[in-house]
Structure formats: structure tokens, C-alpha cells
């Protein structure tokens, strides 16, 4: 895959595009999104490996307005964001050459660390297995162990709106991504409160979740705007922790494609995707199945209605499972 993507990157560069891709880092896993403008740079630094999990569609907001064409390599879930951003008029599609890249699931260094691997200096992809080099010697682990949560419950391998594809077109999958939400819904309110207090109290308001989120592309966020009444730089009280995450999830409700970037980047490992997925699950159940970014036409559920929508009291009536 690496070689095909790299060859395509060179081809596109030579056809006059800037190329948005990943640049190799110190280690095998710390790749950084970068824009390539020369063949030498690509040949030297361009990587496409199982750690290229970052959703690059958000960069296209700025890149598509920079003049000229930019080529991007988008994984299936990135293409949902790509299309959702077009729907919100944020990306100038005509300036983007989108190459869809089929994805076997992306790895996450935190997943390896959580599995107890320390001092990891390298890894070799061996199909189902991963040979991990550490400061204290090599260890072979299942590749699935290194997969990030979002990839374990992948919702779709479908590449949307691409100018060309590398790898096979995929299908929407039957995903178990709501299992954890259901588990929480089944708890008592007290248990849920305790769970979320435990999680959200770790928040340091670094805004990584917001800044990485393709749906969070406001010119000025309410949480940065002193006039909004919600601005702050730190979670100065437990209320502010709740406020930030409730409002953030609410603002992306109906627009969140469930790309999972928020949880990937959270330095405190708060399962933020569980907030977004709650909204997605509710929307699917209350207003009919909806996948943000799946098309350009359907009205997002929060700017739409049906005359016979359920009443808000459904939250109480049907217990914790609306």
C-alpha cells in the first residue's frame, strides 16, 4: 500500500497538485500530516503506514482555498467527513483531487501501550501479527491488539466522492459501535453519573478534541469567545467540564460522522466518542437512520423535523433508552 500511495503521490505532484500526506517521524508511528510540494520531499519523507490514522479532511478546508489544486489520500471514514464538510460549504471541492484509499483498520500507539508494551522502538507488519521491537527485546502481538477502538467497530469501508481509488471499493458494515453506549444506558443514573464524572474530571480543556474534529470548523468557537457566556480556558469547575462536553457534542450532533478523532487525540483518554455516538444512536432511533456525510443532499436531523416527531418526554417514558 505504502508504495502505491507514494507512487500516486509523485504522479499527482507532477501533474501540478500539492499533495497532502504523512511525513515520517522519529519512530515508525509518529507520522505527521504534511503538504508535499517537491518530489524529493515525497521520496524522502512520505509515508503511508498503519499509523496514518489522522483524518486529513479538515486540512482541506484551508488547503482547498489556498489556490491551485491539492491532492489528498482519504480513508473511508475520512471521506465521510470530506463530504460532510462539502455539505457545509467548507471545502471547495473543485480544488481537491481526492484519492480514496481502502483501509484495513488503523493502529494506535496508545493501544499498544495499553497492552503493556514499553519502550517500543519499531514494529514490523506481519499480516495478522505485529512484531514489536522494544528496548528490552522483540515481542510478537496480534495486529488486532494494535487497532484503535474506532477501527475495531468500523462502520463503513465505503469510499465516497473520490476522484480515484486505491484498493477495492468497500461496503457499509454492520457495526457494534453502539454496544458501549447501550451498556451505559442500561446503568442507573447514579452509575452513569459516576462513570462520566470519572471520565470528564480528567479533562484538561486542551481543546485537542475540538481542534481535530472536522465538524468543529467554526471561525470562532463559543468556548473561545468571551461574549458567548461559555468561554473558558480551563475546566474551572465540574460544571464547566460537563458544559464543554455537552455543548461540544450537541454542536456536532447530526454532523458528526463518528470518525473517532476526538477520542484518538484526547491526551487524557476520555471516551469522547461515546458522547457523539449517543447522539447518533438517538437520532437513528428517533428520527430514522442518518449517517452524516453519507450524501450531500439529506437535511441534517437537527435542521429538519417531522410533524410527528416524538416529544422530549420520550426520554423519561422509555427509560434510559429513547
Amino acid at each position: 500500500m505504502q508504495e502505491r500511495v507514494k507512487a500516486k503521490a509523485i504522479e499527482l505532484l507532477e501533474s501540478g497538485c500539492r499533495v497532502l500526506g504523512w511525513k515520517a517521524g522519529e519512530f515508525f508511528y509518529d507520522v505527521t500530516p504534511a503538504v508535499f510540494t517537491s518530489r524529493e520531499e515525497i521520496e524522502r519523507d512520505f509515508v503511508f503506514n498503519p499509523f496514518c490514522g489522522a483524518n486529513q479532511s479538515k486540512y482541506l478546508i484551508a488547503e482547498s482555498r489556498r489556490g491551485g489544486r491539492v491532492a489528498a489520500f482519504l480513508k473511508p471514514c475520512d471521506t465521510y467527513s470530506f463530504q460532510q464538510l462539502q455539505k457545509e460549504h467548507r471545502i471547495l471541492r473543485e480544488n481537491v483531487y481526492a484519492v480514496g484509499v481502502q483501509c484495513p483498520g488503523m493502529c494506535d500507539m496508545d493501544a499498544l501501550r495499553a497492552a503493556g508494551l514499553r519502550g517500543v522502538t519499531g514494529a514490523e507488519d506481519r499480516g495478522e501479527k505485529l512484531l514489536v521491537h522494544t528496548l528490552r527485546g522483540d515481542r510478537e502481538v496480534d495486529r488486532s491488539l494494535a487497532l484503535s477502538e474506532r477501527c475495531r467497530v468500523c462502520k463503513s469501508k465505503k469510499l465516497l466522492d473520490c476522484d480515484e481509488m486505491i484498493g477495492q471499493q468497500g461496503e457499509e458494515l454492520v457495526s457494534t459501535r453502539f454496544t458501549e453506549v447501550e451498556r451505559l444506558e442500561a446503568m442507573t443514573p447514579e452509575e452513569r453519573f459516576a462513570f462520566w464524572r470519572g471520565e470528564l474530571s480528567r479533562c484538561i480543556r486542551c481543546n485537542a478534541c475540538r481542534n481535530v474534529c472536522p465538524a468543529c470548523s467554526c471561525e470562532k468557537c463559543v468556548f473561545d469567545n468571551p461574549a458567548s457566556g461559555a468561554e473558558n480556558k480551563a475546566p474551572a469547575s465540574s460544571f464547566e467540564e460537563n458544559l464543554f462536553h455537552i455543548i461540544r457534542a450537541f454542536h456536532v450532533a447530526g454532523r458528526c460522522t463518528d470518525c473517532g478523532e476526538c477520542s484518538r487525540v484526547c491526551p487524557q483518554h476520555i471516551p469522547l466518542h461515546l458522547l457523539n455516538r449517543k447522539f447518533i444512536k438517538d437520532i437513528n432511533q428517533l428520527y430514522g437512520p442518518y449517517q452524516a456525510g453519507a450524501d450531500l443532499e439529506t437535511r441534517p436531523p437537527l435542521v429538519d423535523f417531522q410533524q410527528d416527531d416524538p416529544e422530549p418526554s420520550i426520554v423519561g417514558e422509555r427509560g434510559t433508552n429513547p
Partner: protein
Amino acid sequence: MKKLPLSQLDALFAAIAEKRRLYIPAGEAGTASFTPWREGLKLTDALNTARSAKDLFFPQVENLADFKVTGKQIQVIENRDPAEPFVLFGVRACDCRSFDILDKVFLCDPVDTYYQARREQGTVVTLACTEPEETCFCTALGIDPTDPAGDVTAWMAEGFLYLRANTARGEELLSSLPLLEEGEKPEQDRSVFEKLPLRDLDWSAFGGERMMERFNAPQWASLAESCLGCGTCTFVCPTCQCYDIKDFNTGGGVKRYRCWDSCMYSDFTLMSAGQPRPTQLERFRQRFMHKLVYYPANHEGEFGCVGCGRCLQKCPISMNIVKVARALGEEAKP
């Protein structure tokens, strides 16, 4: 040097916690944090905490004063959080060095009395490293992870905890504790530190004297281009020290507090005339210039980085001080 069987660690913690509040690193890798000790709380398996130990002296949010408003009357009420004696156990060499860096900022004239109060009440017990992460590069900054500073230095080896007091405050702590016996720690195998991939980072391109060259380096543009502008690096960093002062209107008055700020934020040092660092490039540059150029310029060449590697692990896009050092160091080569 004192020693104690590791099996009695809980008893030791209980003894410390009897008289003062005790914080130990606890929790899982990735989210471990300094946590007030309570019965049953275990030391983390992780090398280090997700957030640094600076939180205990320079918390993310700290009350400064209250203003009470009654009708048209305003009353100022002193409302600093009371500083009580505490022990901070398990600080790694890198974090311990960060206290020196912060001290040089907060304890010089004018003294930051909020920081000072906490510093005076805190006893730091450091813990030597044995299992470094690949992201560690304290050794490249002249720090010995196997012999950290602090009021007391601790080692864990062969079933024992070894403790050495380095300061009067450390002596005082150790002398107040039961269960300790005399003992000498065995020699530590340091070979793993020689294998660290970042051990020989070259910092020669940095320092106060290279200010304008580094400031105007063309590399900043490509280094900063994918920066998301979040505050992760600054908030997990043990040496980042910028804060903002904010007023919170409670309805019945105003609470004035300070909280960490991040130079990565678009409203960092925002002035009425606008943002002095208008794009992410300038803001990004500020962070690294501060650590590698401005701080050494003001503090006899000492870098504002301790090589803890947190930013390497936590940056959402894997941009970090090492990549900056490499890119600019490359440029500085003749």
C-alpha cells in the same frame, strides 16, 4: 540511606499520609496522575503520569481573590487556596528538574506568592527510572534518570525501596517515618539508557545567542503547518508556565482565578489591538523559541525542556520538540 521492603510500601504511605497529604502516581498508562493517597491506592505501572508533577505547585486553576457585589457595593475577599504540607512521592528525574525551571520564573522578583506557598509546603520524593520509554530524552539534556534530585531520592530494586534524603526537608521527612532501616542500594544496570533512540539529540543549534537565526528559520512554516492549535503539548508539559487571569461572574460577585494558558491558542496574549502572533506559525514558534532560545537566554543557557517525552506521546499530530530540534538543527549545520 534508608531502606524498606516493598511489601511494606503501603504502610510507609500510610505513615506519611498520617500527618500530611500524600500524592502518588496512580492509574493506568496514558491516564496516570498524581492522586491523593488513600488506603488501597497502588503506584502506577506506567513510567510517568499523563500530566506532569508541576500541577501540585502550579495547578491548572487557582483562586486569586473574590469580589462580593451587594447592590452597588463591591468588597474584596482574600480567597487563596490554603497551602498545607504535602508529600509528592514518585516524581521522576525529568519532572523534578522542571521544578528548578519553574522556580526560576516564579520565585524570582516579584515572587509569585501562590506558587511559593505551595513550594514551601511540598516535600518532593523522587523515584529513579529503570524502564524508560522510547520517547525519553532527559539524558540528552544532562539529567540522570537513575539519580534524580528532590528532597528525597528513592530507588526500587530487588524488593526494596531505598531512600536518600538530599535536603533538610527530606531529612525531616525521613526521620519522622517508622519502618525504615539503614541500607545501601545495589548498583543499577544503566545499559537500557544507552539504547534510548533519542539519547544523543543535538541541541547545539539552540540557546540565547542564536536567537534571530532560529527565529527567522524557514523551517517553521512546514513544522507548524499541520499544528491543530490545541493546548495538549503545553498542558502536559512540566515546564510550560504561562497562565491567564480570568474573572468569573457568579451572579453575586466575581471570582478571580488564574488558569494555564497555552501559546498555541489563538487568544494567547490577545490584546485590544489584536493578536501579536496572528497565525499558528508564530504561536507554534513561540513555544519552541521559549523553551530552546528565550529561556536559555535568560537563565544561563539552561533549556526549558526536561526531556520527559510527554509531548511526543500526546501530540495529536505527532509534532514535537524533537522534530523541531532535528529540523532546525539540520538547518544550523554548516
